[in-house]
């Protein structure tokens, strides 16, 4: 097993390990910037450990979908991660059009999550589900604007092509367009992972929540796995954005792995900065926010098509 073939696997494992760190870093940065000490960066690890040993409470009305939520969430996020060139050059599994597979794998997780929320019959979780699907539909749209732009730019149909070696050359020729696309992607990342300004993971008022409110009834290991899965999702997307902004395909394997770790931490910091700098939007404003992300990418796409 040469390092070239090994690095993608290592990178995946690295991501899986470091994933809980990213939200931690984000919240910590935010705390520091707002002048508080805040919780330590490895807070999430501790929470997960605690949760894994707590008991589970299932609501009486719930059925299979509710039980399925953590399984699908983790499984499909990992499956999606297989398609991302985390190490900056190649993903573990790639095929033409796998960007569709990537997006739809995440959609699968969302589908199950929403059904689980509706399974409880609670109006709050129904509300959360409704918001989730609303914003997700728009994010899907914006996401594919960006992916289409990248595919036009690189003449590639797979993520490892889009975000891998071929992109590096294009940066020199089409910097502004790709810059816009990358910015758009970052905006979407915040929305997709329900971070501020779309959602505030730290709030405790159900009426304002989106993601959190959908998992109100989950507890113990279930809740833990769900939280872990969403952190993995965050870091995978973060890695993807990082790879696009900062193609490292030419570096040596070890360096690329280091770059991955650095990228994850940096993105975490970046998310924290954003969260500290702007407050959560009123819900009716969110579509506008997502649309702005889409608009940026669309502008890039048009520039590339021209």
């Amino acid at each position, binding site marked *: 097993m040469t390092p070239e073939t090994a690095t993608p696997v290592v990178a995946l494992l690295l991501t899986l390990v470091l994933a809980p760190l990213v939200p931690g870093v984000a919240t910590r940065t935010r705390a520091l910037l707002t002048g508080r000490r805040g919780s330590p960066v490895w807070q999430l690890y501790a929470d997960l450990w605690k949760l*894994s040993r707590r008991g*589970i*409470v*299932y*609501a*009486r*009305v*719930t*059925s299979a979908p509710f039980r399925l939520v*953590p399984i699908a969430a*983790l*499984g*499909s996020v990992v*499956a999606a991660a*297989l398609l991302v060139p985390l190490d900056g050059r190649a993903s573990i*599994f790639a*095929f*033409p*059009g*796998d960007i*569709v*597979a990537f*997006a*739809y794998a995440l*959609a*699968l997780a969302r*589908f199950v999550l*929403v059904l689980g929320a*509706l399974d*409880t*019959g*609670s*109006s709050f979780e*129904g509300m959360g*589900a*409704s*918001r989730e*699907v*609303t914003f*997700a*539909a*728009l994010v*899907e*749209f*914006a996401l*594919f*604007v960006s*992916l*289409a732009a990248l595919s*036009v730019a690189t003449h590639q*149909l797979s993520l490892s092509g889009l975000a891998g070696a071929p992109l590096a050359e294009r940066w020199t020729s089409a910097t502004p367009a790709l810059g816009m696309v990358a910015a758009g992607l970052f905006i979407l990342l915040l929305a997709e992972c329900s971070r501020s300004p779309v959602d505030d993971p730290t709030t405790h008022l*159900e009426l304002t929540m989106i993601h959190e409110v959908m998992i*109100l009834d989950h507890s*113990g*290991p279930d809740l*833990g796995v769900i939280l872990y899965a969403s952190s993995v999702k965050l870091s995978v997307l973060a890695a993807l954005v990082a790879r696009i902004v900062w193609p490292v395909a030419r570096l040596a394997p070890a360096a690329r792995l280091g770059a991955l770790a650095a990228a994850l931490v940096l993105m975490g910091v970046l998310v924290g900065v954003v969260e500290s700098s702007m407050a959560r939007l009123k*819900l009716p404003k969110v*579509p506008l926010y997502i649309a702005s992300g889409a608009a940026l990418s669309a502008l890039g*796409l048009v520039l590339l*098509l021209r």
Partner: protein
Amino acid sequence: MLLWIGLGLLVLAAAVQVALRRRGGADTIFAILVLAGSAMGIAAAAGVLLDGATVSTTIASVLPGGDWVVGIDPLSAVFLVAIFVVGAMSAVYGIGYMRYDRELVAWPSHAFFALEVAALVLVVCARSVVPFMGAWELMAIGSLLLILTEHRHAESRRAGFIYIVATHVGTLALFALFAVLARDTGDWSFGALAQGTHAAGAARNAVLVLALVGFGVKAGLFPLHFWLPPAHAAAPSHVSALMSGVVIKIGVYGLLRVVWLVGPPPLWWGWTVLAIGTLSAVLGVLWALAQHDVKRLLAYHSVENIGIILMGLGVGALASAYGQPTLAALGYGAALLHTVNHALFKSLLFLCAGAVYRETGTRDLEQLGGLARRMPVVWLLFAVGAAAIVGLPPLNGFVSEWLVYRGLLQAGQSAEPLRLAVLATPALALVGGLALACFAKVAGVAFLGTPRSSRAAEATEPSIWLRGPAFLIAVACAVIGIVPPLVVPVVLRTGSFVASEPVDSSFVAASMQGAWQVAGFAALLLAAIAISALVMRWLRARVQRRVSDTWGCGYSRVTARMQYTASSFAEPLLDVFGRASGVRTHRGATVFHSEPFDLVLDRAVAPVWASIQRAAVRLRGLQQGRLRTYLVYVVGTLTALLAYLVIRGGAR
């Protein structure tokens, strides 16, 4: 030959229903005959699909238009498979379905159903104008009679009327279409017509426009879709399954057949098809989101999926116009595969919805809830269908949408203006997201949570007649989704047949590889989920579990009435799209309710028809019963003619 036997068995099945009426055993014999006939037909079609050869027979005829040609080529074979599978399953399902309604006499509708399937087969097998139009109209009339099965309800009568008028307009468009095609030849077999028109530009444009109208009505394209929701809602569910699964697909067949007839279509047509497809897809799913009647909702999803199919078709047309045969084959193939897949999962969904309707007696989402516990099998099947139609891996919907995406993205990489087609990609993604929202709503509100009405609370699992066929279709969905190599090469070869390009083996090989990779991804996904399932099992085993009420966020107890309703679930999303979402909302202090309406039917078609009627009423004054007035008409006419005579040189 097999096909003829199959047709014969179908007709025989109808005859059995007529002969035995309500006597025992009729239904069983009927089911057996239909299944046997369909098996024959599928065998015949499969034969053609495997060795790509075209079989056809000629029947001497003395009607204008020369001999009748009937046969199977790859294009019709693909549709034959869909027709026979969906037809047979729905027919069997129908037996159980009609038994719920005691006072309705079921045997005529069963007989009509078998004949309708036969008519569909004839439509896709006809190779010359007269038999095609004949079978076409038989199909239309058959569907009318099936829609009117429950004609004691005014609703179904209205639906039937709208349907038949719309479809007749379409028929007249085809009338004109073939009249233009047959303008310069006395031999109206498709083969001869194909030679006739490749040259003529204006005629070809006329043909293509008329095709969009004539076949568009049948396919339910926006804005010609308006007949579709009422008809699908009014018809019995197995009929809706057939219509939505197969009958409207005949419109797609027609478009592909016309493309095959007139050769590479001009650019404007490709762009138009792509635009209409995108529009239908987005608006269809958006309007579906606004519905509360399960069957209407599914009907609007048919509009959406036809839109997706047309996006593929448009890519194919554009590619062949720009001379990119492989991409053309890809686009047409994607359209074909999505046609087949939609036939499968949409009929599956209709069959499940029908079971729910029969068990609960309502199609209104707001009356349902908690059915997952009452009818787990139906719930499972419905979930499969829903995941498939949303396009989630590892089900068949994903495979065809993946092909469509690939077509659009590859178009985006070409040098010509063709690359602008990539702009449709995000729209397709939006459609996917909206569909997910919509089916999360249906599945969640109808099957999960707690029952919203007593009838929903007392529902039970339906009989095997209903569950069996649905189960088989669900299996088909899963198989295509997990092992796409079974179908992808076939449809791509058919696609290149439609583009009338020689099949390029390297391209097929490449597509085969791609299909295997999709299969690989499906396997990986399943594996990942399995592993995390094991992990969860282990984690859960280590802690103790208990069951209690839902966390009510401080409220004492959660009641069924506190659940989120379908209206409110869809509201924020519809809000984003404002007026286009075609929904009237009533907000009250304690109540939020929304009632959907069809922007085309209620805002355009009905008003126009009303104004035509008003104009007609104004003309009534001409016939006021005075003999002297009538005599004045006569002398007036005569005077006019004499004037014409004088003008046209009546003088010597």
